[in-house]
């Protein structure tokens, strides 16, 4: 039994309270907490890589009475990469908010959200996952509401109402699972659940609730305005990291609690939704005039890629979904941060205002380009590895139509990415007078883009973690 899973949760929490007590000068606390948390996740990942799944019984009570923390390969990988993305994104928040109450509230909420995210990634208890999801929701809403305009408040409210509706479905499903198996442990419930109306209904409710929270087609209409009207650091965090939480829960629960229940028919329905998300949302992204809205719709398409793992169903497909999650986390955070920097410089995020960016802000342009290449799924980024895994998994399992969907999605993504990059590359005549883009934001977005490159260039270590999993096989 190892203590590291609990440390990944405790350190950000302690940091959050310390930053709250310190008040205005909390940036130092934030940096220290970020470094410590990332360090702990790396140590944990190394341990998982060496020894396999790591276990921690909170309070000394094991399942079914208590709550267990279990970290397998995929969870460790998510902890590390999402942690790095979180840490880097928050650094740009320091540039975005001037020193004051908004910044210190951001820091405290961000650290609490990180604690909730880590708790979600390590937990093996169905109700604990619910509480972690709610914590992430409430802190996300808080982060969105720190935006400057009335639209941010509206976006935050809409996000909140949708999220609690989703949790309602999830909770009802958990009630059914507990009623059937008298346990809340994810793996133990999987052993005890038998095929029948109760388990099918429970899965339907859980999947519906979590798909709503993820923004899977057709329940996606709420997401773009929520991301686009949030302040840029919050949008980067949401689309990159926190927005993946519901999918991760579904991923874990499908693998461990409901493997027997998942027939071909419901899985294919999810696949149709995922395919529609990929194609339809990518097409909608083509029509956008605002860069932030374009990225938001593109994130919806990426969510579709992740959900494709459910109909395909093989371990390779799940690894592909995981790789989409981590590459997109880095890429979308990079793009949102870069967009935020551009917004500061020119005052808006309209695509028509982009000409001249390549001249004035080459670093930002480079980050946008790498992020865009990742969205397209081209080498040498992590997005390519992820799509390659998905295509191969689809072909190997005989469901070749999903491979076609993936490729079509990539083509449409190429269309809108090239449109953005071409606009940015066009020299603006005359050069409009703009403010300087904040340097810190530019550096952060570059680093984030570098992460997505790294995932593409040396995928062996992440992949070995992603393929190592406890729920499947001996």
């Amino acid at each position, binding site marked *: 039994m190892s203590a590291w899973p609990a440390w990944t949760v405790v350190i950000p929490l302690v940091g959050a309270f310390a930053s709250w007590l310190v008040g205005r000068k909390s940036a130092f606390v934030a940096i220290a907490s970020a470094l410590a948390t990332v360090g702990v996740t790396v140590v944990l990942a190394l341990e998982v890589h060496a020894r396999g799944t790591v276990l921690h019984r909170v309070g000394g009570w094991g399942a079914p009475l208590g709550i267990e923390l279990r970290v397998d390969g995929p969870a460790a990988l998510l902890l590390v990469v999402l942690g790095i993305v979180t840490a880097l994104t928050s650094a740009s928040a320091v540039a975005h908010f001037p020193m004051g109450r908004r910044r210190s509230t951001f820091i405290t909420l961000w650290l609490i959200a990180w604690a909730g995210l880590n708790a979600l990634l390590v937990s093996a208890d169905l*109700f604990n996952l619910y509480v972690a999801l*709610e914590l992430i*929701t409430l802190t996300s809403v*808080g982060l969105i509401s720190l935006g400057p305009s009335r*639209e941010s408040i509206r976006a*935050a*409210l809409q996000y*909140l109402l949708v999220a*609690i509706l989703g949790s309602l479905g999830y909770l009802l499903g958990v009630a059914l699972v*507990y009623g059937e198996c008298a346990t809340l442990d994810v793996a133990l419930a999987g052993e005890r659940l038998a095929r029948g109306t109760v388990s099918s209904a429970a899965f339907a409710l859980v999947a519906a609730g979590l798909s709503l929270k993820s923004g899977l087609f057709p329940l996606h209409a709420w997401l773009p305005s929520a991301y686009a009207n949030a302040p840029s650091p919050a949008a980067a965090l949401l689309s990159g990291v926190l927005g993946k939480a519901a999918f991760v829960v579904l991923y874990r629960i499908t693998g461990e609690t409901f493997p027997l229940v998942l027939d071909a028919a419901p899985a294919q329905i999810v696949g149709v939704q995922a395919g529609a998300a990929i194609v339809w949302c990518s097409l909608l992204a083509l029509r956008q005039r605002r860069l932030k809205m374009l990225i938001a719709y593109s994130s919806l398409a990426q969510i579709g890629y992740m959900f494709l793992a459910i109909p395909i169903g093989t371990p390779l497909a799940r690894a592909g979904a995981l790789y989409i999650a981590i590459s997109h986390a880095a890429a979308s955070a990079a793009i949102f941060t870069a967009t935020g920097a551009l917004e500061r410089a020119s005052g808006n995020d309209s695509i028509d205002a982009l000409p001249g960016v390549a001249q004035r802000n080459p670093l930002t342009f480079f980050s946008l380009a790498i992020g865009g290449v990742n969205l397209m799924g081209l080498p040498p980024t992590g997005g390519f590895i992820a799509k390659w895994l998905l295509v191969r998994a689809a072909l190997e399992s005989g469901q070749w139509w999903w491979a076609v969907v993936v490729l079509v999605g990539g083509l449409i993504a190429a269309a809108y990415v090239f449109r953005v990059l071409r606009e940015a590359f066009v020299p603006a005549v005359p050069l409009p007078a703009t403010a300087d883009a904040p340097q810190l934001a530019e550096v952060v977005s570059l680093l984030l883009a570098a992460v997505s490159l790294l995932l593409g260039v040396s995928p062996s270590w992440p992949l070995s973690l992603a393929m190592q999993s406890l729920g499947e096989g001996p």
Partner: protein
Amino acid sequence: MSQWILYAASAAATVAIAGVGAFVAVEPVRRLLSINIAYSGVFMAFVALARRTTSGEADPVPHALVLTGIVVSVSSTALALSLTRRLVRATERSGRDSSSSPDEREA
């Protein structure tokens, strides 16, 4: 019909009615009321299921879960009300101002 079955049926009806009410509601406060009632229905399901024991003494774990759930949902309610209030006030203020209000871009 034993006691837990009565309340389980009540829970199902409550969740259904409030769920429909939440989707149909136009104004945020009403939607919030229906969502809260729907959550109460889910909690009722938990507590009714806890009453199925042979001894008649209830299983305390679902009770603790419901307790946690009530507290979490009151936090969400308070947050939603605070946001709605800010939105209403901001809308009133921009309506009073002679300067243009931010255009509302819907997805």
